[in-house]
C-alpha cells in the first residue's frame, strides 16, 4: 500500500490549546468519540450520570493544517489523551493523524526549531455512542461574564451547599446556595466596559428565569476557564443550562446541565 493512506491529519500550532481542551472535559467524561469531518473535530458526550452533556467543536479553520478525506469516529480514552498531552512542551505544535483503517491515532509534538519531535500512539476504542439532538433554543436569558468570575462564584457557593439557585431579573442576576452551616448570596449587575470587553457583564433578558443546578457539575465546567476569558450562561425555565466557553477562531466548548426540579406531588 502507498504511504498516502492517511485519512485524517490535523496540525495545531499550539499543543497547549488541545491540552486545555482535554483538561476541561476529562474529569467529566471517560471514554468518548471524536467525530472528524472536513468541517472539523467535534465531540459530544454525557457524563456517566447523564446529567451533563459536553459538546466540543474545533473547526477546521482553527487548525494550521487540516485534512480529513473521509469522516471518522475516533473512540478514545480522555485520560489517556491527557497523558499524551502532558508530554507536549509549552511551545510545541501538534499533529494528530490516523488513517481510515488503523486502530490507533498518532500525536506528533514538534518544536519550532524542528530539532525535536516526539511521537505517541494511542489505541482507539469501540465506544457505544448515543448522540442527543440538541434543539436550537431561544433562551430566555443570556448572561455573559468573565470566566474567572464564574469559576470563583461556583467555588465560593460550593462551601455552603450542593446546589445553586440562579435567578435573573432585569439588570441583575443572583446566585444563592444554602446548607447546614448557612447561606451564600452573590449578586452580579450589568457592567459595561468598552475598553476591556473581557470584564464586561451583560444580561440579555427575554423573561425572568429561576433555576436550580448542582454545583459539583458547574465546578467541573469551570475547568474550561483557561480556554476563554469570558463565559456565556444561557438559561430558560425548565430547560438545561448551557455554559459556553468560546475559543476564538477555533470553536467552543458547550456544557449542558439538567436542572434540579421541584418534585411533582404524585
Amino acid at each position, binding site marked *: 500500500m502507498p504511504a498516502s493512506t492517511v*485519512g485524517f491529519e490535523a496540525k495545531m500550532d499550539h499543543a497547549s490549546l488541545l491540552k486545555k481542551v482535554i483538561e476541561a472535559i476529562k474529569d467529566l467524561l471517560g471514554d468518548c468519540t471524536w467525530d472528524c*469531518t472536513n468541517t472539523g473535530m467535534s465531540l459530544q458526550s454525557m457524563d*456517566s450520570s447523564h446529567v451533563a*452533556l459536553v459538546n466540543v467543536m474545533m473547526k477546521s479553520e482553527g487548525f494550521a493544517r487540516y485534512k480529513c478525506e473521509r*469522516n471518522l469516529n475516533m473512540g478514545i480514552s480522555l485520560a489517556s489523551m491527557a497523558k499524551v498531552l502532558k508530554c507536549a512542551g509549552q511551545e510545541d505544535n501538534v499533529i494528530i493523524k490516523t488513517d481510515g483503517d*488503523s486502530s490507533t491515532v498518532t500525536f506528533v509534538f514538534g518544536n519550532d526549531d524542528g530539532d525535536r519531535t516526539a511521537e505517541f500512539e494511542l489505541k482507539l476504542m469501540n465506544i457505544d455512542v448515543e*448522540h442527543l439532538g440538541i434543539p436550537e433554543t431561544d433562551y430566555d436569558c443570556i448572561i455573559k461574564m468573565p470566566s474567572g468570575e464564574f469559576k470563583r462564584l461556583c467555588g465560593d457557593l460550593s462551601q455552603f451547599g450542593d446546589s445553586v439557585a440562579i435567578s435573573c431579573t432585569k439588570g441583575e442576576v443572583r446566585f444563592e446556595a444554602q446548607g447546614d452551616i448557612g447561606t451564600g448570596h452573590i449578586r452580579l449587575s450589568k457592567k459595561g466596559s468598552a475598553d476591556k470587553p473581557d470584564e464586561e457583564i451583560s444580561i440579555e433578558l427575554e423573561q425572568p428565569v429561576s433555576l436550580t443546578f448542582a454545583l459539583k457539575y458547574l465546578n467541573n465546567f469551570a475547568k474550561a476557564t483557561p480556554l476563554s476569558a469570558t463565559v456565556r450562561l444561557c438559561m430558560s425555565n425548565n430547560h438545561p443550562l448551557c455554559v459556553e466557553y468560546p475559543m476564538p477562531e477555533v470553536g467552543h466548548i458547550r456544557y449542558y446541565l439538567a436542572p434540579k426540579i421541584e418534585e411533582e406531588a404524585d
Partner: protein
Amino acid sequence: MGIKDLSKLIQEHAPAAIKESEMKNYFGRKVAIDASMALYQFMIAIRGDGDVLTNETGDVTSHLMGMFYRTIRMLDNGIKPVWVFDGKPPELKSVTLAKRKERREGAEKDLEEAKEVGEGEDVEKFQRRLVRVTKQHNDEAKHLLKLMGVPYFEAPSEAEAQCAQLVRDGKVFATATEDMDALTFGSSILLRHMTFSEAKKMPILEVHLSKVLEDFGISHDQFIDLCILLGCDYCDSIRGIGPKKAFDLIKKHENLEGVLANLDKKKYPVPEDWPFEVVRQYFQKPEVTPGTDVTFKWEEPDEAGLIAYLCADKGFAEDRVRKQVDKLKKMKQAGPVQSRMGDFFKVIPSEAKPKPVIPAASDSKKKDTDSGSKRKGAPAEKKSASASKKPRCGR
C-alpha cells in the same frame, strides 16, 4: 429459577445489551423489585455462624435485616423502590414446585446425615438448600416496608411478571431482580445486583430487552420460545439441548413448532407432557394487575413504629436502627430533584459502531456521521424520561 443460561447467551450474542453502571446513576428512578427473589437471597446471604440470623427468641431476622438496610441503600442513592411480592403460584409451576419440594426433602435427609457425620461444610450446603421464604417472612417484610414508608405491591401471581407489567405501563423505570425471566415477561430494562450488599462492590448490570432482541435477531415471541427451550420454571426442557443448540434451533426454525418438526426426536427426546404452547401463552399474557391505575407513594417513616418493631420485637440494636431512621427522614426533605439530559434532549437513533475507526462517508446507512449539523435540526419538544422509555418488545 429463571431461564437457564440466558445471561450467558446474552453475554455471548448481545454484549451491547448489558451496561455496567453504578447505583448512584439511578437517582430519581422508580424501580420495581422482585421481593421474593430478594428475600430468598437475603436469607441465603445474610448469615451468622453458617445459619440464618436469628434474634434471642430464635426468630429468623435475615430477611428483615436485608430488607431494611438494602432498601435504605437504594433510597440513599436517590432510587425509589417499589417492592413486588409473589401471589399464588400459577398452576403451571406446580411441576417445578413439586420438584423443589422433593429436593428440599432430600436435602433435609442429607442434612441429618451430614450433622451426624459432622461435616461442617456439608451441613451448611444442605442448610442453604432448605432455605424457604414463608408467608410469615413475607408478611413481616411488608410490615417493615409500611413502617419505612416504602410502597409495596402484591402481585396476583408471579412477581417478575408483575414487575414487567409495571415497566410496560411506564409506572417504573426497570425491574430489579436476578431472575432473567423478567425479560421473557417483557420488562424492557432489567437491573441486576440492585439488592446486593455494598460491600460486595458489584456494579449494577442494566440489561436492555430491545437490544437483546435486536442483536439476537429475533422477535419477542421468538425470544419466549427460546427461553422455553433453554429451560424455564414452567415446564421441563428437552434433554441434550443446551444454550448454543437452543439458540441455533430458534434462529433456524423460527419457533418451537418449527423446531419440533425438524428435531431428531431419538437424539433429543421431547418430554411426554410438554405444554409449551400453554407456557408460551403464559409468558405472553401472565396473570398481572394492570399498572395504569396504581400510584406509589414514598412516605415519612414511622420512627416510633420502626424502633418498636425492629428493636423491641426483633432485637435489632437500637442505636444502629436510629441512625438509619435519621437517614430515612433526611432523604424525605432532600429538596428539588436532579433531572437528566434525556428528559429534555432526545437520542438521535444511530447505527451500531462495528469498528473503532469507521469510514463513514462510504457507508450510506450511517445517519449520525454529520451529527454536528444534525443536532441543530432536532425537534425541540420536551420528552419525559418515562415516556421515551416505552417498552418495545414486539407484542
